[in-house]
């Protein structure tokens, strides 16, 4: 899509919100459409130059701003938004399909009937085309069915503080925290609860499968800035810092490839003898040692020494337990 059509799209979607009701809030428009007040005024000025023949002042659109509200006149032909576009419909179908597969929604529930209604906005041909396309985009989120799902959802809905017991990945210890739930986040294969953590006084992500318990406290969430955080920047687990251990492993079979599939910060090289050399960085050797036990004699741990030692201790102790 060109720059002009992107801007035009925004204008065509924005005008109905101003025309239809009794004006619109400038602040809300800027927030919803992701523009500054100056950009908004620039769009409105453009509209002021436009209209229908004979292009006399009585034929051109007009706007005025009073306090925080903006009003328009002579723009009735843009009183409703443009019907859903192909890209928009595809995005809804793909997202809907992913959430059904994740178990967030049932296929035959309200989501299904809502998407049916969306489908009715399209012609039969468009609908078939879009459904076929959405079929070819298969997004799987692992099932989101943890035991805490109901409580977390209740907390999100009622905007209540949650008390959680959480196993911290980097420190390998259990902590108890008060968290104001903001949203559920799916990223690189895992579900997280995004929340404002009272312990850290910051936004934090909590992997759902590391939450030991959740309680509703009944206390209302007080943190205001619900939307102004940068979620992608928070998912920082994949970029271990300089303190991370440099790990080198050699695998006898295809397992090395599996690790690289699962571990975004890993690289791998296939050696001439068919073994796979994997290098990765991690902060948490404790967890990695546990993870490596499953590979038995198919893995050779080359570095670091601490990892070799930790795996040996763990394996030997476990063997004693199994005796």
């Amino acid at each position, binding site marked *: *899509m060109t720059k002009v*059509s992107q801007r035009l*799209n925004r204008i065509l*979607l924005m005008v*109905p919100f101003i025309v239809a*009701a009794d004006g619109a809030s400038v602040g809300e428009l800027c927030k*919803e459409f992701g523009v500054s007040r100056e950009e908004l005024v620039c769009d409105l000025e453009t509209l002021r*130059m436009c209209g*229908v*023949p004979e292009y006399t002042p009585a034929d051109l659109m007009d706007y005025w701003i009073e306090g925080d509200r903006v009003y328009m006149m002579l723009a009735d*032909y*843009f009183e*409703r938004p*443009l*019907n*859903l*576009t*192909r890209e928009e419909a*595809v*995005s*809804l179908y*793909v*997202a809907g399909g992913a*959430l059904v597969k994740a178990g*967030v929604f049932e296929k035959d529930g*309200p*989501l299904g*009937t*809502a*998407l049916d*209604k*969306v489908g009715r*906005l399209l012609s039969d041909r468009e609908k078939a085309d879009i459904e076929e396309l959405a079929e*070819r*985009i*298969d997004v*799987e989120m692992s099932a989101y069915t*943890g035991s805490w799902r109901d409580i977390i959802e209740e907390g999100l*809905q009622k*905007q209540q503080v949650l008390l959680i*017991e959480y196993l911290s990945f980097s420190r390998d210890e*259990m902590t108890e925290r008060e968290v104001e739930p903001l*949203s*559920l986040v*799916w*990223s*690189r294969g895992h579900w997280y609860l995004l929340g404002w953590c009272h312990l850290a006084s910051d936004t934090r992500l909590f992997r759902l499968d590391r939450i030991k318990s959740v309680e509703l406290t009944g206390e209302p969430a007080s943190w205001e800035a619900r939307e102004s955080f940068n979620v992608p920047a928070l*998912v920082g687990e994949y970029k271990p810092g300089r303190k991370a251990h440099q790990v080198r492993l050699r695998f006898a079979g295809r397992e090395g490839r599996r690790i*690289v599939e*699962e571990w975004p910060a890993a690289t791998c090289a296939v050696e001439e003898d068919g073994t796979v050399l994997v290098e990765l960085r991690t902060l948490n050797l*404790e967890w990695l040692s546990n993870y490596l*036990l*499953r590979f038995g*004699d198919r893995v*050779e741990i080359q570095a670091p020494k601490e990892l070799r030692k930790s795996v040996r201790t763990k*394996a030997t102790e*476990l*063997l004693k*337990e*199994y005796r």
Partner: protein
Amino acid sequence: MDKIERLINLMAYLLDTSRPVTFEKLSDTVYKSQPHRTKAEKNALHKMFERDKEELRDMGVNIEVRKTRDGEEGYVIPRGRYYLPHLDLTPEEKVALTIVSRLFLGSGTPFSGPAHSAFLKLVFDEDASLSDVPHVRWVESPGDREALASILDGLMRRKYLRFSYRALDAAEPIERTVEPYGLFNRWGCWYLVGLCHTRKETRCFKLDRIVSDVEVNEKKPKTADFELPQGFEIRDQIPWEWPPARGVEDIESVVHFTPRLAFARESGPARHLSETRYEDGSLEVTYEVSDPEHFVEWVLGFGADARITAPVELKEMVTERLRGIVRGLRTR
């Protein structure tokens, strides 16, 4: 006059009119500031009008051709097809659609922009605030963003893609031309499925391993470059399935968890049958296991915090792995 003003005027006129508007008439109104006296000028103007129509069509605005009363060719934008119809959503449907349209919001995938505008359209008729609807978000690793946008474009328009790809078992990347058939995401990673012209087979390409920009074939942008193979099913192309195919016979297994990690007992690949809690907080859980290997690997992931106590076969699988890894550590 700016191009954007010209396009807005064109739309306003063709939406507002009840009668089809001829090209002549458009030349005297919307396109008045463009020269259109000589034949060459008229031709140039006609081309401009065609390009404008095209650009609007790409945005989803359809300009239709109708006969005027005098039998001439005229243009309109039918309001019934332009305007978003009323949806009449139930409150539950509204919540569901809100969650769906927000999933990709700010995700960094090419779905995020369209999903957001879809959301605004769908709530247009609804005055109720939807701020109490729980958020579910998809967050993408930044690296895939641009490649994804190009792949989706190629997928939607059926155009060839060109990129350089380093296969897992290859030392050097190879330049490839691919017919994009499908896109899938597993464990948070994106994969493209398509016919590779270089290898002459349908293959999966992991986006992380595409080492160049993804170029969409620019020739003949309005025609598709290829047809999809008959009966193409993306599911058939995915080399792993989850959950794994059920074994011939399910077996029962008992696992002992320490109090520390007992909470995670249901995160594994087996069906939970029953459990006993001991006074010290530890837990003994009985599972129905269909894929023993996967199950054993999951239990080993708990390190010293979980131990299989039955049956003997699974215990042996564990000890075999443990002995293996200790042996490997001794030989160096």
